[in-house]
């Protein structure tokens, strides 16, 4: 770790800050994946807020600002809070969100009262305790970074060893129990890992915003991958990157580190949520629009065909659709050479006739599938793809369906 700090092309203090923040980001990212998949991120929030009175009590007991004893105090208080949340949930009719709200606000208030009391004593050694609220990366020293690195290494080892039992418990606890796995013990392990990550981040990111370091990397990672192993790696990298960039930025601008790191992280999450291929908001919006256009196009085409050879007025094609959408669709169809406009209205071109017949044939196949699908053996778990029913079922199944569906009304332009 020391070699790494020396090797970085940064002034010494910046190199220490960057390395420390990278390590804590990595750790929070990895552990955050477990918390997000367990849907326990708010426990992380309660835990980090509760660490604050832990820090204060540790200071009062030790009388000096010694990193290790403060972190031990934070860890003990955080663990107590996590246990308290669980106990409230299990032993009373309090719902998880309520239990978390009570523990979080109660313990945080206690922390503020204690910190105010300590500040009022005028003890010179207490300067800097306030940094545990919003975090101050600039205060990191090399010994802190070495300690963080050791804790992070321990976490990586535990995750690597318990990777499979943890996956099974996270995904399907009932199945896990039936294979004889010690569920309670594994849950305890993941809670302890959460405590470690929070405690490591506390000084740098601060009690109030620490939860963001847990949530941000995991959420961003989930957007870009559907595999747990990849998700862990991506979350670790995102956490390290956000942590480093945020810490250096806050040190340079003399702002509290927590808010800067979290703003960066929120930006990453927004980007991932909107742009992620296959999951992102933009991707969904584009698909919805494409589907809607296609439905309109096919519907108008079929309705023009149903009106028979005589031209039909656009107003007669409403059928519950807004007339503007109908007109726009007609213009698009004309551009593609499928319909033509005459003085009397709209009619199909030869190509349009063919396209309408194809649409009707596809609908026919769908009806046949809905009616007779269960009788057609396809040999495996294949299910119809709404975009390409014939392709997804295979030629043989399509042929059988066509035969079974033979009683449906014939495909013809005028039949209605």
């Amino acid at each position, binding site marked *: 770790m020391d070699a790494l700090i020396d090797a970085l092309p940064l002034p010494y203090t910046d190199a220490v800050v960057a390395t420390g923040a990278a390590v804590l980001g990595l750790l929070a990212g990895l552990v955050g994946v477990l918390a997000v998949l367990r849907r326990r991120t708010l426990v992380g929030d309660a835990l980090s807020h509760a660490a604050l009175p832990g820090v204060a009590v540790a200071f009062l007991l030790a009388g000096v600002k010694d990193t290790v004893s403060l972190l031990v105090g934070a860890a003990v208080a955080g663990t107590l809070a996590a246990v308290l949340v669980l106990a409230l949930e299990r032993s009373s009719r309090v719902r998880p969100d309520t239990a978390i709200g009570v523990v979080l606000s109660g313990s945080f208030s206690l922390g503020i009262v204690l910190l105010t009391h300590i500040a009022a004593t005028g003890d010179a050694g207490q300067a800097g305790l306030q940094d545990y609220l919003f975090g101050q990366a600039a205060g990191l020293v090399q010994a802190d970074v070495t300690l963080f690195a050791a804790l992070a290494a321990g976490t990586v080892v535990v995750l690597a060893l318990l990777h499979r039992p943890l996956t099974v418990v996270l995904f399907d606890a009932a199945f896990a129990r*039936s294979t004889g796995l010690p569920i309670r013990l594994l849950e305890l392990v993941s809670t302890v890992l959460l405590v470690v990550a929070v405690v490591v981040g506390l000084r740098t990111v601060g009690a109030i915003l620490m939860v963001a370091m847990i949530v941000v990397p995991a959420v961003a990672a*989930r957007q870009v991958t559907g595999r*747990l192993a990849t998700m862990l790696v991506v979350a670790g990298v995102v956490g390290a990157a956000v942590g480093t960039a945020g810490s250096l930025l806050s040190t340079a601008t003399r702002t509290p580190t927590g808010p800067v790191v979290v703003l960066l992280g929120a930006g990453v999450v927004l980007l991932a949520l909107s742009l992620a291929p296959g999951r992102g908001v933009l991707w969904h919006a584009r698909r919805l629009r494409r589907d809607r256009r296609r439905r309109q196009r096919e519907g108008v085409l079929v309705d023009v065909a149903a009106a028979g050879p005589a031209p039909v007025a656009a107003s007669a094609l409403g059928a519950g659709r807004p007339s503007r959408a109908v007109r726009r669709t007609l213009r698009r169809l004309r551009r593609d050479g499928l319909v033509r406009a005459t003085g009397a209205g709209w009619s199909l071109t030869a190509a349009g006739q063919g396209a309408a017949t194809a649409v009707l044939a596809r609908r026919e196949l769908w009806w046949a599938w809905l009616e007779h699908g269960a009788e057609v053996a396809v040999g495996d778990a294949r*299910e119809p793809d709404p975009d390409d029913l014939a392709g997804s079922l295979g030629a043989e199944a399509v042929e059988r369906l066509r035969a079974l569906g033979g009683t449906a009304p014939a495909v013809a332009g005028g039949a209605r």
Partner: protein
Amino acid sequence: MSAADARPPALEVRGLTVSYGRRPVLADVDATVPAGTLSAVVGPNGAGKSTLLQAALGLLPADSGRTLVEGRPARAALDRVAYVPQRDAVDWDFPITVREVVEMGRYRAAGWFRRVRRSERPVVDESLDRVGMTAFAGRQISQLSGGQRQRVFLARALAQQAPLLVMDEPFAGVDARTEAALLDVLTAVRDEGRSVVVVHHDLGTVRARFDHALLLNVRAVACGPVAEALTPANLRRAYGAAGVPGGAAGREEEPAWTR
């Protein structure tokens, strides 16, 4: 039913009593699942069917009573059981592929801390193939339909290669094609000499395809070969005179308005 064998029952509960808080869910239930049978657990909503499965396997604490798997205490015989929980109990947006879910069935046998060995692969492949999911092995599970998800769960259970398969409501919300395909697999498993216990709602399917049935309504109303257990009189006792699915006579026909 394959030759009524001399093996100890696949699953046996004696005097099983379970309560949630002060409310009894199962009261003094005696039931036996003979080895090598396809057995159904049927009964009205709230009869305690899921609770029975879980308590019988020792996954849920019982107030009193004994449960045996192949004649041994259930908790000590979990390696003889493949349990399939209700489908809704898991997060189907979990970042995992179909194949990885099925591999979970091998973890216990292969060792929790080791990589899945090459020699385990054929078992996983064959399990995927039996439920028709080979083509979907690389899919992320959120992209699956309800029926395909149930197939994955069955594949995971098959991969466990256990002599007793216990499934909680596998056919709830599943399309007819999947139900038929899964029943074929379960029948084949039975024909291999293994035992299958399924919580099921549809009395028609139970009559047509199952060997053995436990009719449950907090108490065990009847337990035995399907024809003996699901008599009109027993069904009335379990469901109440008006509530028997398919009418008081226990026929398969549904009332017209449910179609």
